[in-house]
């Protein structure tokens, strides 16, 4: 059974500097791939390349065995993206943002209240996101991960702006996702206490 | 000879049009050549500095 996502002979330049060359990786269902490296080593660019936001100089990404170029839709239906920017509108409140999110990805509406309660956001649903703290905004982005049915999570530096409670929340949520058979690619330079099948790729 | 140059009274227009054409073509030709030699020298200098560094 071939890997869920695999990268073959990936190469990327930033200006004249070669970030990585002939990079290979494979991710199976239920697995976590950690992308390590110092700041500016191209972790974010690698994730954005895998997701299809930028083009590699060379190399290909395969989704369920066949090349990704051409049929992105199936891949993106399964993908949930968590990045440095929250990805929600500051002027809208939490429920309005989530309703818009439903027009893009399929949600299981039933669990919205439960997820918000778990993330400690259930009292803040009427406030525009602008008035939430940075940590709370990260939890709002986590709400998108929990509510989406996508099997693949891609997270870029999930721990920034999070206190220790937030950090353990991310670890717990990620472990549950892996336990349910989901898979994830996480770019971080901080240690992750994750139980489960973990692979690592380091960009020197 | 003079009446040929006067172009039936429109000499100033005809010659200014042709003069302008020659100027624009010269700018394109010389600009192209200079640009090419400048690029060659820049790239060669860049290669030399890379050689020295590595």
């Amino acid at each position, binding site marked *: 059974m071939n890997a869920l996502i695999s990268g073959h002979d990936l190469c990327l330049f930033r200006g004249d500097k070669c970030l990585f060359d002939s990079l290979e990786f494979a991710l199976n269902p239920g697995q976590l791939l950690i992308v390590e490296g110092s700041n500016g080593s191209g972790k974010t660019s690698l994730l954005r390349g895998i997701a299809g936001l930028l083009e590699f100089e060379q190399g290909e990404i395969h989704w369920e065995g066949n090349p990704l170029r051409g049929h992105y839709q199936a891949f993106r*239906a399964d993908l949930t993206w968590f990045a440095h*920017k*929250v*990805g929600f*509108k*500051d002027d809208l409140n939490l429920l309005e943002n989530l309703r818009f999110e439903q027009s*893009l990805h*399929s949600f299981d509406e039933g669990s919205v209240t439960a997820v918000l309660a778990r993330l400690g956001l259930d009292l803040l649903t009427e406030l525009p996101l602008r008035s939430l703290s940075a940590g709370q905004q990260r939890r709002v982005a986590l709400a998108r991960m929990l509510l989406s049915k996508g099997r693949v999570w891609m997270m870029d530096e999930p721990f920034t702006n999070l206190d220790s409670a937030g950090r353990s929340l991310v670890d717990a949520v990620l472990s549950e996702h892996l336990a349910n058979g989901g898979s994830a690619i996480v770019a971080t330079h901080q240690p992750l206490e994750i139980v489960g099948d973990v692979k690592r790729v380091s960009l020197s | 000879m003079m009446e040929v140059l006067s172009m039936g009274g429109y000499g100033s227009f005809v010659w200014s049009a042709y003069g302008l054409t020659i100027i624009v073509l010269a700018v394109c030709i010389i600009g192209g050549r200079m640009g090419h030699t400048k690029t060659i020298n820049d790239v060669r200098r860049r290669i030399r500095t890379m050689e020295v560094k590595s």
Partner: protein
Amino acid sequence: MTDTAPPVPSLWSGFIGIVRRDILLAWKRPGDVLNPLFFFAMVSTLFPLALGPSSEQLGSIGPGVIWVAALLAALLSLNSLFVSDFEDGSLDQLLLSPQPLTVLALGKAIGHWIVSGLPLVVISPLIAISFHMPDQSIKVMAVTLFFGTLSLSLFGSIGAALTVGLHRGTALLSLLILPLAMPVLIFGARTVSLSTSDDAVSAGIYFLAAYCMLALTLAPFATAAALRISNE
């Protein structure tokens, strides 16, 4: 966690979702809607002040002035079309959603048109009256502005998508879009001025409608491609 991809919401829900979100955003931040309208009204009143109150002169320059003011007002609100999405990361979410980006780009352009183009069409009769324009040309003005502002929003969204990542994109946007807006301006303003001397106006209106259809079909593809390129 099933092992097949989750179902993708319908195209229509994606399109309506983004249009509703943009209208909601405009509702929550009325400045973005009203400023171009005030700009449109003010620019139109500059000309009578500058050229004197003689009514037949105003009547003849009225269509041109109103159309140029509408064009500039639409351009004013265009450059912020994708900038807020780019800055808060929702552009990444749009690009990574299973919904085809062309439909979302069309939604953004239509959303922008509803928020900026339609209000222009609604208040243009008021301005036209102040220019002593005859009744039938007020109606023709509204019709031409209706098609014209829609084409502007669509072609303008291509320019907005091309300049979204550039930090000084505002002047550049109008530089890119004005040549494309010229046919709309030509047919719009001339058709209205034809209607003041009650000549046949249907030719101009048909052209504007045809140009609008061209924009509706082609512009979203170019906007989607431009978004993917500038968001790299």
